[in-house]
């Protein structure tokens, strides 16, 4: 059984809770993000930089990005487990999935550190 091979019995309930928790948190965050995107569209660099520099927006954007990445890593993992049955490909895609989400999380943190906290990375 696929479930057994990937030890669903050991962490299945935890995954279920994490999927629901991240979904619940993303409901208000994604509505706020869509409304903010509609307001920022076509606004140009100054408006975008000023918006991300505001602490409340930076915190909201950081939460949105990190919880989205957490949620989509779990979602993509389910898709990989459903369709990719060859172990080598499965393991490679799983690592790639985690890696992409980690890189995007780091990029978000660096961008917000520069825009909202004023840290200078020399770029």
């Amino acid at each position, binding site marked *: 059984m696929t479930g057994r091979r990937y030890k669903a019995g050991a962490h299945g309930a935890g995954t279920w809770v994490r999927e629901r928790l991240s979904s619940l948190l993303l409901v208000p965050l994604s509505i706020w993000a869509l409304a903010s995107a509609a307001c920022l569209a076509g606004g140009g660099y100054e408006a975008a930089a000023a918006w*991300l520099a505001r602490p409340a927006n930076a915190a909201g954007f950081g939460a949105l990005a990190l919880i989205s990445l957490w949620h989509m890593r779990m979602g993509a993992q389910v898709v990989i487990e459903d369709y990719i049955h060859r172990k080598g490909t499965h393991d490679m895609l799983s690592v790639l999935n985690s890696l992409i989400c980690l890189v995007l999380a780091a990029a978000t943190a660096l961008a917000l550190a520069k825009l909202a906290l004023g840290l200078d990375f020399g770029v």
Partner: protein
Amino acid sequence: MSHGNARVAAGSGKGRGSAEKPLSPHLQIWRWHVTMLGSILHRVSGIALYVGTALVVGWAVATALGPDAYAAFAAAAGSPFGLVIWLGLSAAAFYHLAAGIRHLVWDLGLFMRPASADVLTVLSILFAAAATAGLWGWLFWTGAVSL
């Protein structure tokens, strides 16, 4: 799944001989139903939003890099091809949001009967279509985006 068995088309699982075991339901003998479409759309929109999240992070990174990087991002995002991508991503976001709320409602044990589940699914598809049309109507009407 929840009400899967009620959906199996009549006559399925009948083998040629009585000695044959009934086969488990498979795609070909499932009567089409709207919750199936809803489920497929939820997965497809989720995968689209994987790319969408990367693009939104790209927007923040471009902003952090400065006016030149931002201008390059905005030029690509505002091109006709870019707008089609954002149109699709906004539809995916509205649908995934509505379908996700639908799943949270189901997790509470509500709207689980096939007819109620169908209603919730149709509502989430209609919401996504209306919200996408509303958003883009507003963006073009205010002049925030243009072709």
